[in-house]
């Protein structure tokens, strides 16, 4: 069953690589994306990250394109608005319905393009992390970064129970659909509110059962944190460094050209 991002994170071809390095690569790329003043570097990141995800991590194209569709369509819509609203510079394109002049100016267009590029590049990098690094490994890295343990323990517990509640929500939803709970919009809204309230109660109960389960095993405020796996190979570190340096260079060079 491969329905969730988490399932791919568990089984992709880069699963066994150092999670520290993967996080560094992903986060580094995101930082360069959002700080770049021109769309060149973000587009480069988007393309290269997608290639890494598809070829190195062996995530099927169908899954990956599906995942990208949602944030991408959102980015396209919002940048359209930005393009129309923003602006100085030459008018590139305009329409005049009912005497109102709506148009895209040079500035607005550039900003919209940058916005799309940044979102696209950032999303691809984020998906790289999400699709190749299981949450558990991320917890281990957080621990080694000295994040306070209660915070990590809490997030681990939340992470674990997301899946339990996801299952329950799916079951409740099925039970509603089976009895035609979503026949009309009104009914769907009703059903959804019921689902939410039942899920709340169930999570409450689950919480109580959790306390009993922990007590039954002598809970004393301690949870073992997972250890990190062995470090990265030299080649991998060099490759990651080279990639980030290249991206940074593209970003800086195109920034300069943009200014001059």
């Amino acid at each position: 069953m491969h329905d969730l991002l988490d399932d791919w994170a568990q089984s992709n071809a880069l699963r066994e690589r150092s999670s520290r390095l993967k996080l560094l690569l992903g986060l580094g790329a995101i930082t360069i994306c959002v700080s770049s003043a021109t769309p060149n570097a973000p587009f480069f990141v988007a393309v290269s990250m997608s290639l890494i995800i598809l070829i190195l991590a062996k995530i099927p194209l169908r899954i990956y394109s599906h995942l990208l569709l949602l944030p991408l369509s959102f980015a396209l819509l919002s940048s359209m608005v930005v393009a129309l609203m923003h602006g100085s510079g030459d008018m590139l394109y305009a329409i005049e319905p009912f005497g109102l002049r709506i148009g895209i100016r040079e500035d607005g267009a550039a900003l919209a393009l940058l916005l799309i590029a940044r979102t696209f590049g950032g999303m691809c990098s984020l998906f790289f992390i999400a699709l190749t690094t299981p949450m558990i490994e991320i917890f281990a890295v957080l621990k080694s970064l000295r994040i306070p343990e209660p915070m990590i323990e809490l997030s681990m517990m939340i992470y674990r129970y997301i899946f339990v509640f996801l299952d329950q929500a799916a079951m409740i939803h099925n039970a509603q659909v089976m009895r035609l709970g979503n026949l009309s919009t009104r009914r769907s809204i009703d059903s959804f509110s019921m689902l939410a309230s039942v899920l709340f109660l169930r999570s409450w109960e689950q919480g109580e059962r959790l306390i009993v389960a922990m007590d039954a095993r002598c809970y004393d405020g301690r949870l073992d944190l997972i250890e990190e796996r062995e470090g990265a190979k030299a080649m991998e570190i060099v490759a990651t460094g080279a990639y980030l340096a290249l991206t940074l260079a593209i970003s800086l060079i195109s920034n300069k050209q943009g200014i001059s």
Partner: protein
Amino acid sequence: MAMILETRGIGYAYADGTRALSNVSLTIEEGRKIALVGPNGAGKSTLMLMFNGILRPSTGEVLFRNRRLDYDSRSLREVRRRVGMVFQNSDDQLFAPTIYQDVAFGPVNLGFPPEKVKRYVGYALQYVGLSGYERRPPHHLSGGEKKRAAIAGILAMEPEVMILDEPTSNLDPASSEEIMEMLDELNLGGKTLIISTHDVDLAYRWADEVVLMKDGGVLCRGSGEKVFGDLELIREARLKPPLMVDLYQELVNRGLAVQKKPPKSILELCDLMDERKRRDELQQENKGKIYICNADELGPEKAVELIRKVDADYTGAMGTRAKLLAEEANLRVDFTYGVIDKCILKALIGKSCLVFVSQGMLGQIQKRIKAYSQESGAQIHSIDLSARNNGRSLPVAHGFSRTKSLK
């Protein structure tokens, strides 16, 4: 036998006033296999939660090894370490994001040093056959695997008593047989086991002692034959007689089986059916042989080789480690549960069997076959193929208790 757990006249009412238990007095001896049986709402789960101090009785008292439970945190820790509980729903129990962390939870909270935690977790996971699953999250496991992980989490604390609430509910038949066999293995290692179940066939076949509960009280307790032989009682408790008992009674009524005590297994039933024939004829007939080999000594290749060499009609795997071996070597195994009985049944009709046995169960299988031969007069030979223990019967050494010497 020493008393390990005892309740004296305990009663309990939930906050809304429902009486869940009233005046329950029960003694549990060390090393027994006990099944609590009863309809929904009989108070089985409530009683189980009393045994390790999760619930505190409103009247009466609970004793562990003849000492009254004090409900202060120190003695609660002690009793919870010694009385482990496996919940009905594994998802309630597996709360950590990885199997390793979950199994380590108990040992870590007992304050064991990291190196010792690691060793205990390793043993527990190996015992239940989940080595290599350390970094998997629980939601990637099947129902049977989840149950085993939950059992490992308890095993890692080295309890003396294990309580399992409906251990086979929601499991497929093969998984539940495997879980029950694992419980037998644990019992052989000296653990006292208490399970609750609706499954009368399971309780009848598996338990040394059955406790029949209804409306928060104990209706009857005793051997499976005694409790399930009383049809009036069974009806009152909204249960049904085990299939084996029902069938046996019909066969006796038709003169097809000898009237003795009700059989517990197909083997015993078959014995009752050809009782007359046996004494005169069966002794001369050619019996199949049962070859036994220690699965812990063999690698996959050796196992395959052995199968080719012995060329038995049937193969069986008994115990978790033996099943793992069969899986590794990609063997087609005919029997994976109730193995001894199946082998004897086949031997009686002249077929031979080769059985891979986990070390801990080696002594048991030989003893069982010997006892059967003596009792029935049928000469069934078991041949031990293990390299080291040739012909010598093994003391019942147990896998998990080995950790004790490592402390």
